[in-house]
C-alpha cells in the first residue's frame, strides 16, 4: 500500500489529500509517542526493525513472489505505537532505499498505520484470550483486513484524486487481494507461534518493563 511520489501531485484534490495525510500522520505519531514511555523506545525500535527485516521475506504466490508487509501483526503487537514505528520504517525506506518519498510520507504512514491500529482494536482480545481456533481465525482476519483496508483506502484516494486514475485504483485493489490472503495465513501462524512461545509479546502494548529506574 505504498503510493509513490507522483500520482497525487498532479491535481489539486491529490495535493489536498497529501496535506490531509500529513496532518493525520502527525497526529497519529504524536499520540503514539505520548502513549509510549521513554523506556520503551528500544523495545518499539527493535520490534520495528524486526518487522522491517521481515518485510524482506519474499513469499511465493502464483508464478511470482510478494514481500511481506505484516501491518496487521505490527498493529497487534505495538498498538498505538504502530504509528511512530511505521512512520520511522517508511521514512527510512524513503530516504535510503527510494521507495515512496517525502510528500507521500504522511499519507503512506496513515495508509499502513490506521489499518494496523484498527486491527489491534478489532482482533487483539480474540488473538490474546480466545481459544486456539478462534485465535487462528482472528490472526488470519487481522493480517488480511489490514492489507485490504489499506488497499481500499489507497484505491479510494486514487479515485478521488482524479477520474484518470480510476483504472490504476482498480488495478491496485485487485493486486492486493491475493497479498491479503498470504498475509492472513502468515499472520495466523505467527500469532499461534507467539501464543505458544512468548505469549507476553502479544501483551507488548502494555507490557511492564522488567528493569525500572527509581527516578526517571
Amino acid at each position, binding site marked *: 500500500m505504498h503510493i509513490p511520489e507522483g500520482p497525487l501531485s498532479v491535481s489539486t484534490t491529490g495535493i489536498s489529500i497529501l496535506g490531509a495525510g500529513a496532518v493525520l500522520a502527525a497526529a497519529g505519531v504524536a499520540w503514539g509517542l505520548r502513549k509510549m514511555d521513554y523506556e520503551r523506545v528500544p523495545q518499539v*525500535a527493535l520490534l520495528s526493525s524486526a518487522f522491517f527485516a521481515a518485510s524482506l521475506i519474499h513469499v511465493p504466490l502464483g508464478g511470482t513472489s510478494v514481500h511481506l508487509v505484516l501491518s496487521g501483526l505490527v498493529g497487534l503487537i505495538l498498538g498505538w505505537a504502530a504509528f511512530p514505528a511505521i512512520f520511522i520504517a517508511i521514512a527510512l525506506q524513503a530516504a535510503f532505499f527510494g521507495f515512496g518519498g517525502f510528500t507521500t510520507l504522511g499519507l503512506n504512514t496513515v495508509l499502513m498505520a490506521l489499518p494496523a491500529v484498527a486491527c489491534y482494536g478489532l482482533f487483539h482480545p480474540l488473538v490474546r484470550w480466545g481459544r486456539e481456533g478462534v485465535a487462528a481465525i482472528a490472526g488470519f482476519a487481522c493480517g488480511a483486513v489490514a492489507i485490504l483496508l489499506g488497499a481500499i483506502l489507497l484505491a479510494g484516494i486514487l479515485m478521488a484524486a482524479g477520474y*484518470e486514475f480510476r*483504472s490504476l485504483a482498480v488495478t491496485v485493489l485487485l493486486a492486493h487481494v491475493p497479498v491479503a490472503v498470504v498475509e492472513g495465513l502468515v499472520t495466523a501462524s505467527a500469532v499461534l507461534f507467539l501464543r505458544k512461545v512468548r505469549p507476553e*509479546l502479544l501483551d507488548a502494548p502494555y507490557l511492564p518493563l522488567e528493569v525500572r529506574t527509581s527516578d526517571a
Partner: protein
Amino acid sequence: MTWIATEPPRRVKLLFMFQTANFVPSVLDRFDPRARIVAAAAFCLIDTLVRQWESLVLAFAGAVVAATLAGFWPRTILARLAPLNLFMVLVLVIVPFTTPGTPIAFFGSWAYSWEGLLVAVEVVLKGNTMVLAVMALVASMDPIVLGHALHHLGVPEKLVHLMLFAVRYFEVLRREYLRLAAAIKARGFRPRMNRHTYRTYGYLVGMLLVRGLDRSERIVAAMKCRGFRGRFFLLDHFALTRRDLGFAAVTTLFFAFVAWVEWM
C-alpha cells in the same frame, strides 16, 4: 582480479546505511545537514505545486544536478530509481485508458488518450524529480547525522531516538533473519505455494520478533547498568557558517527561478 567491477564508495555506504572507511565526502557533504533537509523538503513542495512543462523539466534538471553533486554514480542513481519506475510503467500503460480526450490508439473498445499520456508523463517527471532530490540532499547523509539534524529542526526527541535505534539494529535483525533463513534451508525447506510454506514463514516472523524483544530487554538492562535515567543526549550540534548561507541562497534562488518560470 581486474574483471570484477569495482564498487564505488557511495554504494558501500548505502548498503550498510553507515559511513564506511572508504567514504568520500561529496560537494554537498560540506553543507549543514539541516540546510540540506530543509532544501529537500522545499524542493518536494515546489515540485508538487508546479504544473507547467517548462518548470517541471527545470526542476528535474535541478534534481539531476543535485544528485551528481552528491557524488552518486550514475549506476547507483539508476538502481535507486528502478522501483519507482516499475510503478511508473504501470501508470504509463494504464492511466491514459481512463482519461477522457483525443484517442491516439485503440485496444478493442478501450481508447488510449493523448491527454492521459500527458498526465502520465507529468506523474513520471514529478516522481523522479522528488526521489532524486531526496536522494541527493538527504540519503547521501549518514543516518546518525540525519537523526541529529532532525532533532535540531524540532522533531521530537523520542521519535529521533526511535529512528536511531531502528537504524542501529536493523542490520542486526536482518542478519538474524538471514541466519534463520539459512537454518530452515539447511533442513530442506523449499518455498512453494502451500500451507506448509506460509506456516513456516509465520514461525520465522514470530521468531524474529522474539529475538528482537529479547535483545531490546538486554539493551534496556545495559542502559540501566550505565545509569540511564529516562533521557538520551544527542551529541552533535551544528553551526551555520557562511558557506551554509551560500548554499541556502543558491537553493532559494533556484526555487524562486522555478516558481518564476511557472507563474510568470
